């Protein structure tokens, strides 16, 4: 148990948070290595199916990061996404599919490398506190 | 014997058949020699190709029972399993389950003239049939053999080397055609299969026609065969259906009372006339 490290999928918007990850990298900022990045064209590309699929496959946490509202490359993508995220997070916690602390959202622009690195740390710590995901992981179908 | 359990096979070779790279021929070799002995098949039958982790697909057997030591399947890339198969390489392990279905009616075909009409990638079990019939042991059992085979372009024809060899033989009359070509070296026919069939007008006397191809080709060729004098009970076709078990258990491939996997896939036109048009 002691050597368990949280595994986190990070869906990063190509136009901002992904750039922020790059900036954090070239700025030699340190952050925990627990995230696996999936680049998406916009935070509104996130379909609830993606997040459920990630948890089903056994990740301990999911983090979605996009542009600040008002700064969307496609003008309004993240404004639509906000409503989806609000409902998605409350519904996932309401139905007990995930515990609080496993699903994170943030807005980080491509200029905010330091904030990116800091946020990774916060997400990792939060997921670490939630512990290894156990309940919504499909290991093998429970069938005869 | 569990009829759902595939025989393990190794992919011996993979050949890209067509210029669009969507058709590949896989030569498979049984890992256990005794399995090959159990896999006794006839031209016109099919098998379920099994890929662990992806699933199974029904594919017509393209090799002939006269060819020993391997099985050949030509597979079009359409769905999840076929795409996965196209990504596989020689040496990899997969599975084969079968043989399945009836076959072309070889007991009825003996002593007859045979007209084979094929289009596009539906030429696989027809290849099996041709190789079977022109085998020196079998050739005397059949009369005249005519083959009309068409594809969109020369690059879309399957088994090009073999077609060229068969063209040179005197005991089989090849009528290869393409819908269109600007290849100056193309020395065969140009035109759709129904047209070429009418031009070559194979004699219906004492003859059976075996026809496999896209629905549109079949639709326009059947009237030509009628004109030439082929009665419905001497026109034979092979159907395709979504299948899961291949042995008549899973229930999805029926046309009326008939399961295409077990009672077919080969039906005469006369048989199909008595069934719902649900294929």
């Amino acid at each position, binding site marked *: 148990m002691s050597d368990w490290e949280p595994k986190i999928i990070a869906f990063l918007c190509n136009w901002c948070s992904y750039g922020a990850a790059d900036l954090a990298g070239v700025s030699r900022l340190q952050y925990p290595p627990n995230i696996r990045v999936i680049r998406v064209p916009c935070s509104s590309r996130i379909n609830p199916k993606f997040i459920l699929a990630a948890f*089903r496959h056994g990740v301990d946490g999911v983090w979605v990061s996009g542009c600040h509202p008002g700064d969307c490359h496609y003008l309004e993508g993240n404004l639509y996404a906000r409503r989806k995220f609000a409902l998605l997070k409350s519904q996932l916690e*309401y139905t007990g599919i995930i515990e609080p602390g496993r699903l994170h959202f943030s807005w980080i622009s491509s200029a905010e490398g330091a904030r990116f690195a800091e946020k990774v740390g916060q997400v990792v710590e939060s997921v670490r506190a939630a512990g290894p995901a156990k309940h*919504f992981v499909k290991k093998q179908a429970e069938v005869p | 014997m569990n009829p759902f359990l595939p025989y393990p096979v190794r992919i011996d070779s993979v050949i890209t058949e067509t210029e669009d790279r969507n058709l590949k021929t896989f030569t498979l070799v049984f890992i256990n020699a005794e399995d090959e002995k159990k896999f006794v098949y006839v031209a016109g039958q099919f098998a379920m190709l099994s890929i662990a982790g992806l699933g199974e697909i029904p594919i017509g057997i393209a090799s002939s029972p006269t060819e020993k030591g391997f099985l050949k399947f030509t597979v079009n890339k359409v769905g999840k399993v076929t795409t996965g198969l196209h990504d596989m390489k020689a040496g990899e392990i997969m599975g084969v389950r079968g043989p399945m279905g009836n076959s072309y009616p070889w007991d009825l075909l003996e002593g007859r003239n045979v007209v084979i009409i094929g289009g596009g990638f539906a030429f696989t079990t027809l290849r099996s049939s041709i190789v079977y019939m022109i085998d020196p042991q079998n050739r005397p059992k059949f009369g005249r053999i005519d083959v009309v085979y068409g594809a969109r372009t020369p690059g879309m024809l399957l088994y090009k080397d073999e077609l060229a060899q068969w063209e040179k033989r005197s005991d089989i009359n090849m009528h290869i055609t393409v819908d269109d070509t600007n290849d100056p070296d193309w020395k065969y026919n140009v035109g759709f299969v129904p047209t070429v069939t009418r031009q070559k007008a194979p004699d219906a006397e004492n003859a059976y026609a075996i026809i496999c191809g896209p629905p549109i080709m079949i639709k326009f060729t059947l009237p030509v065969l009628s004109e030439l004098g082929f009665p419905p009970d001497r026109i034979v076709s092979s159907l395709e259906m979504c299948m899961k078990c291949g042995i008549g258990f899973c229930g999805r491939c029926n046309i009326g009372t008939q399961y295409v996997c077990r009672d077919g896939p080969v039906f005469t036109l006369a048989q199909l006339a008595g069934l719902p048009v649900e294929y």
Partner: protein
Amino acid sequence: MHSYTERIREAAKRVLLEKRVDGVIGFRKGTVPFMNEPFLALSPQQADLLVWDGNCAMNLANYLPKRTDRVAVTAKGCDSRSIVIHLLENQIRREQLYVLGIPCQGMTDKRKLADRLNGKGILGVEERGDELRVYGRGFEYSFERGEFLQENCAVCEHKNPVLYDELLGEPVAEQQVDRYEEIRKIESMPPDRKRLFFEDLVRPCIRCYACRNACPACFCPTCFVDEKKPQWVGKTIDPTDTRTFHFLRAFHMAGRCTDCGSCERACPVGIRVRLFTRKLEKEIKELYGYEAGVILDERPPLEAFRPEDPEPFLDG
């Protein structure tokens, strides 16, 4: 005979004879207690088969998408709201529709009655005003129908159709009720309890998709459960698969569900699937002040935004 039955038949015959529509979608008398069958009357003669009573719960908006003809449809409050959603989502054109609005007095819940009778086989049921008479081998009871309304009807705030061409009765009184008492109870459970609660809830699921298909708002050409590349949800009855199915099914209904109760009524194993959709309904009402299918000129909430929308999903 229910007073609406006569009016529906009269209106149906009239619109058919006037050639205003090609058919009338309503209900015909069912073959088992508490069931009527959705029915398309194509002639005045067939219109005489149309009936109305407390067993017309199936949401008839389900039969409208992709129609090319002109149809009349009997619509309760919830049906009419689902029709509004269809119009907003371009599933049918308003010109094709002739809505026979029915102020609804609620639908009977056969499961509640079965519980009251301890599973005794009910052979027949009769409605006389507010009275419900049920009988079977060696028993006959009379109940007040109001006690046996479907749960969604008991907390319904839109009994009267919101859209119609003709209203077939006097509007009924609307009620103000607390629709979310049970939802709040679940919200207040600790995470583990919530998980166990919903695991238990969907455990009997046999993946027959009756809930999905009974829903008028379900009309995707390819449902997410049928997608293969990639396959988002397994087809087994493993808890992870059934929970994924129910979660995503409900989520697709966010802002579009009118709480008609068809899903719950259709479920052959009695899963209370509205516990998923009602939470979404509550959130949407609280966050965006939106109620599905009530206003014709506002996009559903997930197709819209306001600059000042709250961001409760952000950390801290």
